[in-house]
């Protein structure tokens, strides 16, 4: 019953489709459409992940690599978005994005350094123990 009642409503002449432009945020006032601007989709996420990457730098350097790489990938996408259409997005979100990118790069470098440091220390311990068989046997006995 309800469908039959609804159908005539659907069959009513729809309003003529307005000409949709390709750009959802058409430039107004010479390209400065302040009312239409929105923030970049991933700006805050990139900033938070970039800052988080330094917190986990002590955990073997692997745990901190994950947020840093994610932040870098997301920031690359958003930078491309902004360069496609700079007037559609707010400048402050772009600044946030750039800050997050810098944080992610620094976190990435720090994490890689700590990972390398960890590997070097393990190699030093390993060679030191292997060059002294008696100590090695003592260690193995201690582990049992």
């Amino acid at each position: 019953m309800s469908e039959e009642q609804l159908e005539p409503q659907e069959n009513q002449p729809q309003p003529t489709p307005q000409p949709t432009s390709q750009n959802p945020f058409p430039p107004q006032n010479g390209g400065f459409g302040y009312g239409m601007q929105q923030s970049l989709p991933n700006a805050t996420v990139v900033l938070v992940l970039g800052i988080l990457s330094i917190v986990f730098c002590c955990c073997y350097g692997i745990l901190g690599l994950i947020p840093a790489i994610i932040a870098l990938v997301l920031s690359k996408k958003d930078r491309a978005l902004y360069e496609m259409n700079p007037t559609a997005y707010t400048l402050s979100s772009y600044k946030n994005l750039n800050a997050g990118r810098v944080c992610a790069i620094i976190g990435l470098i720090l994490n890689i350094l700590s990972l390398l440091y960890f590997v070097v220390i393990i190699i030093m311990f390993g060679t030191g123990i292997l060059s002294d068989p008696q100590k090695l046997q003592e260690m193995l006995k201690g582990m049992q």
Partner: protein
Amino acid sequence: MKGTIILLALFFLSESKGVINWLQNHLLLCPFKQTLGIDCPGCGIQRSILELVQGNFIASFKLYPATLPIITLFIFTIVHLKFDFKNGAFFIKMLYIGITLIIVINYIYKIFTHQLI
């Protein structure tokens, strides 16, 4: 929800040191230090935060100098994302670089003064 927050705040601010004492006996062990017996660049932050909660700024600075900047960075980031300051992004960048410098210099200093073990 509000009641629990107020209760927690009262618990921390009250004279009883039950929470802090419990935390001091249940610190997370660093995997780096567990396997090798040497401090990692992040070792000391939990002890330093506990000292900060108790109000000993100097002791917390001696244990881990980057604790206060890290906490200010977190708080500033949250406030900046909420209210959108004019030069907030630049300030966050500078704070971040400063924190990394503090951590690296602190670790090198620890190596040269034999405080790692």
